[in-house]
């Protein structure tokens, strides 16, 4: 088959340009992260990793992910079920609302939480009186992360579930299945790849969120520093190797995310060609 742009000269030129630009803009930064982290040798790398503050940051980051991912998973599934399986007034509005976190600058996201829960905020006085600390503590970090990552699961599920329609679930109802059985045995098998991908994206963002978290965290070393905040602080302290050591962990996670995505897509493509 002959198509536009098939001439060898054009093809070589375009592929060459694409490869050079990809190497320069994407591959080089990735390599640089690990090169900088290992600049002073592997021993220093391990030393930096086992630094108390870094370990604390890793712990807090994991805590944030462990809370946000399941919560948003459950919310995402319910929301997707609601907007794809039922029709009700305000359905479109609800779908639009959950896109807001994508449009909002992370700093603004942090700000609105600060305004709500901060000392001078609406709930601040009440929280203060009851000695509950949300801002500049881990609950605040969890809350803004929930805000920032809430669209991911639903965004992956809604188009898929819309395309699949509810025929199969309706068939299950006529066979007398209960709600939970229908979801577990009919819906879930159809959406599990999209669900998994949504979880991967949620996790990547939950672990890596910087702007929103930096507003509400208060940057207390060993207490409210997540890994990205730790990266920033070390960098501002001119501890480049330390900063890139923590950054390399996050980069590693990013690579795992990409690999998982590629694997999911590959499997989906294989299933498509198999049928």
């Amino acid at each position, binding site marked *: *088959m*002959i*198509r*536009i*742009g098939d001439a060898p000269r*054009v093809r070589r030129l*375009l*592929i060459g340009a*694409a490869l050079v630009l*990809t190497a320069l*803009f*994407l*591959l*080089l930064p990735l390599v*640089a992260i690990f090169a*900088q982290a290992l600049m002073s040798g592997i021993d220093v790398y391990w030393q930096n990793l086992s630094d108390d503050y870094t370990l604390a940051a890793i712990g807090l980051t994991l805590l944030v992910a462990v809370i946000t991912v399941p919560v948003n998973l459950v919310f995402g599934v319910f*929301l997707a*079920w609601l907007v794809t399986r*039922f*029709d009700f007034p305000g359905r479109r509005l*609800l779908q639009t*609302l959950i*896109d807001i976190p994508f*449009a909002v*600058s992370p*700093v*603004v*996201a942090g*700000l609105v939480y600060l*305004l709500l829960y901060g000392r001078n905020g*609406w709930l601040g006085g009440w929280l203060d009186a009851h000695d509950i600390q949300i801002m500049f503590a881990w609950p605040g970090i969890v809350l803004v992360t929930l805000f920032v990552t809430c669209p991911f699961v639903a965004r992956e599920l809604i188009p898929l579930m819309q395309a699949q329609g*509810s025929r199969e*679930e*309706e068939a299950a*109802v006529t066979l007398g299945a209960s*709600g939970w059985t229908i*979801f577990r045995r009919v819906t879930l098998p159809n959406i599990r790849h999209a669900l998994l991908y949504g979880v991967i*994206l949620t996790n990547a963002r939950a*672990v*890596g*969120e*910087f*702007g929103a978290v*930096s*507003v509400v965290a208060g940057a207390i070393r060993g207490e409210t520093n997540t*890994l*990205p*905040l730790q*990266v*920033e602080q070390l*960098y501002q302290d001119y501890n480049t190797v330390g900063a*890139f050591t923590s*950054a390399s962990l*996050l*980069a590693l996670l*990013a690579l795992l*995310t*990409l690999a998982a*995505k*590629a694997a999911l897509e590959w499997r989906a493509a294989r299933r498509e060609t198999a049928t």
Partner: protein
Amino acid sequence: MIAHALTWRRERRVLPGFGLSLGISLTFVSLILLLPLTSLVGQLSQLSWSQYWFLITDPRLLASYGVTLFGAAVAAIFNAAFGLLMAWVLVRYEFPGKRLVDALMDLPFALPTAVAGITLATLYSSNGWIGRLLEPLGISISYTWIGIALAMAFTSIPFVVRTVQPVLEDLPAEVDEAAMTLGASDSLAFRRVILPYLWPALVTGTGLAFVRSLGEFGAVIFIAGGKPYETEITSLMIFVKLQEYDYAGASAVASIVLATSLALLLAINLWQGRFIKRLHGGRG
């Protein structure tokens, strides 16, 4: 008509879980999304118009609007070209390492912005791998608008590629073939036939990249340096005001950022809707 709608609705409610999923969704959306956003409105309502106007027209802030808009525009234009090239190459050609390149396109979404920020700042600083090469040529990137645009471009790379790619994949071979049988050269066929097919996706992707760049924070601040009037982006202004406990000022600026982003998103959606309607019939 109404009767029909009612029976249809009842039919849809055959499936269980309406009450539960509605309850959970509304509770979550109210608590996590709406309540915090209303606090912004509450904060702003304490300001008079003149105070508000005064806060958002601070000269240093005005300069930051310019810096942010300009950087985001440059980043979006770069991404339109780069994204179109990558989508084309990834869909139309086979070459070794293609799957790796394809996977790398998503890196900016997977990599935390702070990591991207310090990495770009290090690479392009005057003694960084790339900065060192550019220094003798008299080009400095760190602490200039170029650095800001670069960081914004990096974080929004996937938008154009990933919106154009599926459209290009779905483009039937006959479109190319029809243009060629009518004698069109490659460049003419691309310009007049293929590009119009990709146009809605290209504009949408570029628009989303622009919106994302406007709000970008983590990736930009390190390379930008935050010199007032020159390399200070609007998100950073909000952050600085917050650190000075100027909540009113921060809220006022945030309202501008928020309104701009939402208006742009709405515009993109509306435009897309109109364009698609024209192509898929809708008589007259």
